[in-house]
């Protein structure tokens, strides 16, 4: 099955191990979200990442990029060598998203950028009178950034009902718990008060994600959409779940093996 979450997580682990890289937890919290998006919603006519009529997916939280790479491999846009040689000298795939890679729309990592660019793309689609949809995935830590809220005002003012923000609410940011660092309160009611149609779901329940996306698009015309996904940082590997050290920790041979075992175990 394409975009099988278990397989995607293994790809991320292979990649992270090959490149000895960080941000594994950030990728694991968005696996099911990306799986559902790529499997059932994002339209790439002729499987072409540059197709003019494609939907737009912007990973604004560039730290989750390995999850997107894993999906792009399923689409055939990346090859095995890209993964085996991750982070080797002279390789293309970086530790944060780079728009020069076909299939990646924005350069991110500096947070709070993708939202506004997505709003611009959604407005462009409206002006061109196409039915293209724009999805922007942001982290809950990322919404500390001011431009997110500037963009939310703008999207509502211009009635961009072809725009959806997906918030990966994993409860952590780089240095700890979001509630300790910058209290977010209810993200859903924040977006609602900015004029969005919003819903909160379990971000690892594929059926619920799919249903919520379908429901949001069917919902209120003239309103932008917000999908708040409650997720677990490090999801899928028992010793990584809820442990923010996997924002920074690199795999060694032992932890890599254990992680693979854990993924297999969780799915048998």
């Amino acid at each position, binding site marked *: 099955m394409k975009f099988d979450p278990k397989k995607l997580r293994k790809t991320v682990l292979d990649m992270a191990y090959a490149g000895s890289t960080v941000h594994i937890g950030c990728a694991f919290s968005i696996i099911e979200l990306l799986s559902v998006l790529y499997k059932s919603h994002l339209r790439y006519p002729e499987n072409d990442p540059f197709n003019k009529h494609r939907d737009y997916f912007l990973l604004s939280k560039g730290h989750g990029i390995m999850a997107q790479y894993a999906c792009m491999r399923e689409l055939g846009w990346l090859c095995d060598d890209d993964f085996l040689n991750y982070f080797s000298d002279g390789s293309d795939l970086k530790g944060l998203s780079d728009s020069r890679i076909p299939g990646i729309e924005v350069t991110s990592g500096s947070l709070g*950028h993708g939202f*506004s660019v997505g709003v*611009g793309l959604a407005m462009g689609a409206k002006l061109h009178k196409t039915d293209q949809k724009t999805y922007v995935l942001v982290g809950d830590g990322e919404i500390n950034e001011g431009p997110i809220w500037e963009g939310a005002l703008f999207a509502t003012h211009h009635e961009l009902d072809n725009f959806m923000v997906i918030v990966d609410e994993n409860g952590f940011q780089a240095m700890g718990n979001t509630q300790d660092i910058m209290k977010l309160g209810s993200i859903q009611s924040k977006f609602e008060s900015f004029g969005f149609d919003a819903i909160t779901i379990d971000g690892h329940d594929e059926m619920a994600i799919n249903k919520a996306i379908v429901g949001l698009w069917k919902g209120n015309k003239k309103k932008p959409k917000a999908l708040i996904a409650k997720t677990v940082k490090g999801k899928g590997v028992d010793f990584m779940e809820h442990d923010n050290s996997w924002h920074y920790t690199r795999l060694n041979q032992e932890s890599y093996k254990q992680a693979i075992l854990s993924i297999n175990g969780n799915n048998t």
Partner: protein
Amino acid sequence: MRDALSDALVSLGKKDPNILLLTGDHGYALFDDFRRECPEQYINAGIAEQNMVGVAAGLARSGFRPIVYGLSAFIPIRVLEQIKLDVAHDHLPVIFIGDGAGFVYSHLGTSHQATEDIACSRVVPNLSVYSPADRFELTQCLAIAYQDNSAVYLRVGKADRGDIHQSLPNIKSGRLIKVKTGKESKYSFIATGSMVRTAIDVADKLHNIDVWSMPFIKPIDRSMVEKICHNSEAVVVLEEHSKFGGLGSLIAEIASESSPVKILHVAVNDRFSQKCGTYEYLLQEHELDFATVYKNIRNFFERI
């Protein structure tokens, strides 16, 4: 110059329906004609410059030609990272107009004055930087920026210092324009924006000066600068911008590599404005008024 800006925007907007003009709630009265002639192409993005630039990037990605307008204190300074990451990184065709550069907002103080914008923008890869001196240069710079089909920062400074040119045949991107030829030219003045007027006024009293206007800061025709430096006993660079990183730095970078020459740099010292007052008053505070500039240039020539 502001009429010229308005006219140029209207003519671009009418020529190309993909032109979208975005403003961060600035430009009172400046856009009256544009709004009347191209109402569907005008977006007031509110007082939210960072989002405005991101939105412009998205619009450019979907085939539009955004022109983003703001005060140069905000565009490019406040949004430098959005320009770098969202626009310049991918060669997106967005024109940034930063108005009121230098000390135009002389009464308003530090927040509205911009003397660091050239330095900050010229270090961003893929971003061109233009700095016209009068309405003729402005019109052509905007036309060239449109033809460039890539990211451009257009610096608009003090707009009412009169015409430098009586007319201006088509200028080529990157070239300096000779605006005065001395009788027996020993020295050259290279100036940009508002200071071209001052350069000409000083040269009028000294007789042996060639004066060049430099509306293109990046990219530039290096060989022209090398030639001017090579053929001059000394060069004076004038700009209403910080001494760090602007036109003076650029000329010195080129001269030091290939045609070393003594350079006097007439620019803003490393300080914020202390007082407020008229534009002329503030130029005095920063030693950029005609009398002080003239005196300092005389002293420089005497020391050579």
